[in-house]
């Protein structure tokens, strides 16, 4: 991957949080869109995520993202993490051609506990649990 910056948000910085090189499928959409798009995470930190995707998004676009924590647990489903934030920059990748990396800042995240096929229970830092139909 050799990103070539094509878009960047002026006066915006990603704080130097520890980045975890976790590759997993992530779904994202611009706020207000109905359809989710897929990409792969390159790395994730508490303040941001780097996504490889076929699509670029303009800097400062507000986005929603969701991904399953890619780990097997004994007798439990790993949570799905739902995040809201905005795009910091989109960069065109030289390899593979036609792909972009999208750096997004995470402003808010919450865990969605998987309840088998019936739905989720959401947990965030402010509220109690509540069941969601997704």
């Amino acid at each position, binding site marked *: 991957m050799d990103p070539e910056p094509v878009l960047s948000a002026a006066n915006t910085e990603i704080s130097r949080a520890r980045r975890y090189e976790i590759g997993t*499928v992530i779904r994202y959409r611009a706020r207000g869109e109905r359809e989710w798009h897929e990409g792969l995470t390159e790395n994730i930190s508490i303040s941001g995520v780097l996504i490889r995707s*076929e699509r670029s998004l303009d800097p400062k676009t507000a986005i929603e993202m969701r991904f399953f924590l890619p780990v097997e*647990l*004994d007798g439990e*489903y790993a*949570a799905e993490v739902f995040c809201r934030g905005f795009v910091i920059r989109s960069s065109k990748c030289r390899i593979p051609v036609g792909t972009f990396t999208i750096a997004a800042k995470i402003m808010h995240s919450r865990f969605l506990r998987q309840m088998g096929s019936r739905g989720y229970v959401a*947990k965030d*830092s402010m509220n109690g*649990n509540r069941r969601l139909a997704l």
Partner: protein
Amino acid sequence: MVSLPNSFPSPIRILIADDHPLFRDGLRRLLQAEPGFEVVGEASDGDVLVDLARKTRPDILLLDLSMPRQDGMEVLRELSLSKIPVRTLLLTASIEKAQIVQALKLGAYGVILKEATTQRLFDSIQCVMAGQYWIGRESVSDLVRALRSVAPSENGARGKDYGLTTRELEIVTLVVAGYSNPDIAQRCSISEQTVKHHISNIFDKLGVSNRLELALFAVNHRLTAVAS
């Protein structure tokens, strides 16, 4: 959720790359019998494949992983450097999970096993055409599982425990599963205050600052790995 179109206005142009002529012939016949698919070329080795892809400009490349001269991974690497906007599905008898991740990083859109049914093959092509990834039998869930199995620490075994006690490791697992503090308290038959105390200790030991970072750390360092 991502929606899949039922049909495409023009046929999906497919290039087949496999070193076995009988297999290529059978695959071509299958695809040509299906409305909406058009086979635009066949290649028997990796050397000629990239040139053929450049000439035929297919939408989809069905690529055998093990071919003479250049194997599938080498072809993927070469394609990723070229300007050919083709979406590649690896078509293989077997594949290691680490190879799946390597192939995805090189731009492949998925893997379909040669033992798959014809319908699965058609589904995978349409799924990839719609911009989704395809691994095994399902588009996303199996891919997540494959990626889970090749998380950064080796062999699927739990890594270092970073000085965490058995109880703390149990709580880490519950956090990764999305449990709230009250839920954890109930599950472990301890008070919520004790849960908070444990989580505070875990944060200190691991040098993380919130639940999200704890979960990322746990995934990255296999703190919750199932004992094998």
